[in-house]
């Protein structure tokens, strides 16, 4: 099974004619992803790696009946591109750019909820369901198919964790980069129900960070609804208060909102296994699985 993307997912790549877009189109095709269309305004009619290119998402969707799109476009065009995809009725939109203005994401967040589509990112490495499909720029070699669902606000911490999991023969059902920004299109609590319902997934790893209240909301959901075991890591315990650590979202307010202590406490109360480091995640998984 897996969630969000699988071997049947028909993917559009927005910005396919750019350097990154073309490179990762090839990577994704090689991994087995069904990339059905590319979009690049003014470049419709071309083909890239055998993928037909359209001028607009609407035309790409009409021609291919795609159900997901990934944007390889710079931050300043991300808002346009995501709105275009929402407007065209694409159900799953993955946006990877760093430094998307938070006002743009505020607009997109509310728009996507109203239109019932799922936005993943920005500042996300994408989504991979190992062995089936990937929509993202992650180095897929470190992933392996299995039964642990992984969600992470950080790409590097996720890679570190997954790489160790794979070395220890613990595979993944689906790994999702929710992104490190202040307003992510989708948060842990919106993805947990999918992982809970996915028969392939037997356990869940949450790699959280300081800042925001995504882990707090996840804790509440887990307490009331999750039957599968959950392991969580909160990065940034020793980050200085009030300073952004690179991830715009990883910032603790001066009043303590978003602190690692609070997040860990609530997760622990919800029965979640708290990991002290990425290595610790793997040792916990070994124990409980």
């Amino acid at each position: 099974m897996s969630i969000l993307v699988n071997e049947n997912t028909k993917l559009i790549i927005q910005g396919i004619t750019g350097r990154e877009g073309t490179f990762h189109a090839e990577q994704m095709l090689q991994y087995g992803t069904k990339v059905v269309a590319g979009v690049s305004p003014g470049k419709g009619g071309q083909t890239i790696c055998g993928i037909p290119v359209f001028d607009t998402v609407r035309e790409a969707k009409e021609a291919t009946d795609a159900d997901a799109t990934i944007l390889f476009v710079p931050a300043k065009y991300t808002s346009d591109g995501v709105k275009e995809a929402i407007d065209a009725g694409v159900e799953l939109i993955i946006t990877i750019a760093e430094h998307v203005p938070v006002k743009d994401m505020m607009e997109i967040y509310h728009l996507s909820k109203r239109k019932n589509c799922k936005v993943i990112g920005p500042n996300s490495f994408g989504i991979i369901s190992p062995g089936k499909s990937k929509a993202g720029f992650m180095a897929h070699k470190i992933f392996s198919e299995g039964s642990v669902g992984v969600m992470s606000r950080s790409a590097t911490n996720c890679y570190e964790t997954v790489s160790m999991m794979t070395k220890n023969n613990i595979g993944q059902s689906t790994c999702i980069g929710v992104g490190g920004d202040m307003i992510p299109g989708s948060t842990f609590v919106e993805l947990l129900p999918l992982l809970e319902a996915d028969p392939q997934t037997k356990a869940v790893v949450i790699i959280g960070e300081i800042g925001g209240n995504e882990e707090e909301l996840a804790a509440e959901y887990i307490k009331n609804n999750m039957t599968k075991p959950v392991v969580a890591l909160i990065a940034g315990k020793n980050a200085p208060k009030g300073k952004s650590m690179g991830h715009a979202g990883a910032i603790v307010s001066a009043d303590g909102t978003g602190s690692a202590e609070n997040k860990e406490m609530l997760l622990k109360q919800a029965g979640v296994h708290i990991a002290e480091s990425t290595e610790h995640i793997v040792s916990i998984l070994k124990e409980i699985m």
Partner: protein
Amino acid sequence: MKFMEYQARETFAKYNIPVMNGVVIDSVSQVKEKIKDLKFPLVVKAQVQVGGRGKAGGIQFADNVDDVIRISDKLLFTEIKGHKINKLMIVEKANGIKECYLSIILDRQTKCPMIIFSAEGGIDIEETAVKSPDSIIKVKIDPAIGVQGYMVQYIINKSGISKNIAPSLLEVIKQLYKLFLDYDALLMEINPLLICEDNTLIALDGKIDIDDSALYRQPIVKEYRDELQEEELILEARKFRFLYIPIEEKGNIAVISNGSGMLMSSIDLISKANMTVGAALDLGGGATADRIKEAVRIVLSNEDIKYLYINIFGGITRCNEVAQGVKEAMEIQPKGKCVVVRLEGTNKEEGVNILNSSNLDIVSVDGLVDGVKALAERGAV
């Protein structure tokens, strides 16, 4: 990016939010000419971005020109808590009957802008939020609704302030919200907001924080940024699109990584091992030899830093490139600095060989935790 007080005042004035008459000087010689249209008594305010400025003598009152000159001479180019005073703002002293707190923040929980109001002004709102949360009134602004009269009515009823200020408060909040949106702000704060006898309002001091990701479409804010006194290393790092973050003053370890998450994990592990990180640098994407070399140079130019932990994990990063960059950077470094390198990615072995073959103080480790151990072994604290 956070505005200086005089920048906030100028911005409020642009959007017709009432502020006191005033001027900004950066030399005592300007005082006489600049303040000639101002009415005494005046307030001289040191322009530094640090809390507790008043208690440290950074805000002083003046009854005549001589006073202003004397105070300016005393303050200009001195320091408050390590922050140099390069500018003074001189404004007319306000007369009012009550000070309040007003701000609009981006609320991460509702993903909406939120009005925050307190009838107690001049306070530290974060402290108040912990001590007496009831005195703080919050009103969410749905972007599809905007600022409406009923929100102000609600604020007035809950806070108990005079109904007579409703029209001027609505006007100020509407303008502040417009500013919030127009400027891509994360915070627009007026504190204190002074209520005058005639029910008008004056913004006495303000904080503005702008989303760094939106600076490309905020040319005015970019200009303002150039006027800030930022640490030299932050500025130097920015030139290469690195993010340099000072962590703890006494720390002698620095961390370089190619992602914010890994940076935080590294700091957490080092701290857990009772060592202290002084600075961190996020490379962002593209860990090439050249970029690594610059990053190492920048971090080690901080004299307090004796140990550097480089932790690069990237599926497609070429480790030999990274190793080469580290080696080249260390070759031109003075002695006495130790670098621990953890590499993961393509050509890992080659990279490790490059590091091990140098006769510099470079330690190659395998895995995040091993790196932390190596730091301790080398004597980092």
